[in-house]
């Protein structure tokens, strides 16, 4: 059992996301994270789903995804050289004159940017893979995280290889 990152190219039509996610829940798969948005083709969308399962389970879910008429292509990026990123926004308690400097120092180590400064809080924006964001969250917890918002993972293959419709 390990996380698999699936890149799914779909028709950009109403209801497609629910077809895809419905299939996961129906077959007993938990989606770890999900990201969806437009892609290089104007009439398609790309969904990146991280799912945990053994190889046979993931193979089965990919085959089932391929059966959906609105799914154009499914690729498992897991065993390929790839870049994966998430973005997180973290609202941390940081009263003036207390730990602000420390938090800002941590932010700079993680190359996180401060995107909002309030009287009692700071908002950090960080981009990275899952582990990096987990590590930053863990460090900031001692100061008090008031709110934590995180996108799903997006992934792309390194080099000239692509996950496209093959047109």
């Amino acid at each position, binding site marked *: 059992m390990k996380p698999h990152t699936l890149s799914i190219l*779909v*028709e950009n039509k*109403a*209801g497609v996301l*629910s*077809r895809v996610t*419905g*299939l996961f829940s*129906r077959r007993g798969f938990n989606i770890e994270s999900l990201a969806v948005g437009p892609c290089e083709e104007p009439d398609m969308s790309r969904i990146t789903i991280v799912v945990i399962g053994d190889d*046979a389970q993931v*193979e*089965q879910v990919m*085959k*089932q995804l*391929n*059966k*959906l*008429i*609105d*799914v*154009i292509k499914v690729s498992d990026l897991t065993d390929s050289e790839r870049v994966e990123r998430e973005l997180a926004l973290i609202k941390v308690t940081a009263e003036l004159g207390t730990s602000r400097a420390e938090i800002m120092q941590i932010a700079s180590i993680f190359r996180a940017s401060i995107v909002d400064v309030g009287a009692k809080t700071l908002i950090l924006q960080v981009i990275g893979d899952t582990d990096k964001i987990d590590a930053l969250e863990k460090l900031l917890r001692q100061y008090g995280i008031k709110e934590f918002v995180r996108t799903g993972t997006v992934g792309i293959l390194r080099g000239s290889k692509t996950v496209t*419709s093959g*047109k």
Partner: protein
Amino acid sequence: MKTGAKILVESLQREGTEIIFGYPGGVVLPIYDELYDSSLRHILVRHEQAAAHAADGYARASGRVGVCLATSGPGACNLVTGIATAYMDSVPMVALTGQVPTNLLGNDAFQESDITGITMPITKHNYLVKSAGEVSRTVQEAFYIAGTGRPGPVLIDIPKDVSTGLSADVKLPEKVTLRGYNPTYKGHKRQMEKALQLLAQSERPLIYAGGGIIASNASPELMEFAMLASIPVTTTLMGIGCIPCHHPLNLGMLGMHGTEYANFAVTECDLMIAIGARFDDRVTGKIDTFAPHAKIIHIDIDPAEIGKNKRVDVPIVGDVKAVLRDLLSLMKKQGAHEAWRKKIKHWKQHHPLKCPTNGALHPQFIIRTLSDLVKEKAVIVSEVGQNQMWTAQHFCFHNPRTWITSGGLGTMGYGLPAAMGVHFARPDVPVFDIAGDGSIQMNIQEFGTLASNQIPVKVVILNNMYLGMVRQWQELFYDHRYSFTELPPVDFVKIANAYGIEGMRVESPDDVLPALQASLDCNGPFVMDFRIEREENVFPMVPAGAAINEMIGGHPPS
């Protein structure tokens, strides 16, 4: 300019639709108005579920896409069981539903239900049409998707303002192309060569033939393949009819209520060639002990079926007809597997299906009498439960598409409405619905459809005043505690008569043949109420989760 309703009817006819089964209601009024003077035949059922099953029966018997129509909300919801039945058994069907006008969508309007959402997991694909201009293309795509690749039901939801809305004719492509849908029809040559190598090395090969052979009309190729290499054939419930029952290579059905010899052969074979079958739990029993000594070749058009339940040595994705043809062109006449066939012959002789004969009225006897009477000149439909298993075991099927039954979903109430659909596909032969007293009462209102259209379906009710299969499980596995499985006696002949249908009650074996003959002599529908031995069981039986050679109710080891 034409209305969406007119475009719909024209599009159905363009796809070759001759008949639709349906039930009118508020938001499909524009469509029904268009049907009023159309040449498209419409059969009014008494419940929408029956419309779906009738379309399904028509599709299974003809191989063409069946069509049903219902209104929004409750009408659409009533189709659901029928759509799920078709989905589980890969039956090509287009289900049309009315929907509330687009401006009311999502408003909880009167008779609104999100039928595309509801049917997403039980359709191959579905559509919510948003304008009259989309109707013709959607119908074309729906028929294409339903009828190609692994067939299945497709639903089209049509809001009322789409039916009344206007559009000019839309130019349609000659051929549908969908970038997300490209079924593989031709098998991979290397894989086929590997399969033939395994076959050449095998001493005890066995073909495990499923409904995919019927769906792709591949019986002739299967027969040629089996005979060329002398390979015995066992069929699933859905595969029955792909090889004639009396053929020396035929082992009958395998699995939970399969023949002993088929299940022995599965357990001892050294090569299993699964063709258009999906290793369902009712077939395999305990999966780890299914075909334990065999290498497995799996031919199927749906790649998702390969390796889903059982590890496979040689997968071949493709249309089974095309793959078998290619295999035949690549192979030479093979060894006769004489020792293996001798062993199977011995099993067949010493472990035949039992047909009790003690003077009481036994269902097996009724099925065999019917089989001897009609021979290959009938289509047999069943309900679900003991009636279905007795028929699968004891009726001698000669041809594909002459055995119509709900396999995957196991839908009680399927048989009677499906038989109506079968009649319109095969008006040349009598159609029998083999029912139990439980399942017939699930859609008994369709006696009304039989009567008003004089659809000559012959209904054989094996009446034991129990939900027999559940009672059998309670007897065997729940210490005879018959919890809610006893049904009070019903006078089915009176019910039939009330609808204007002739009927006959039968209580003794001597009256079986005359009753069946009387049903054939009757031009219209006919209902027979056979009062059978109440606690008759279906044997042999593999208890759920046991290995398939661990059967109860069989013969002692020989």
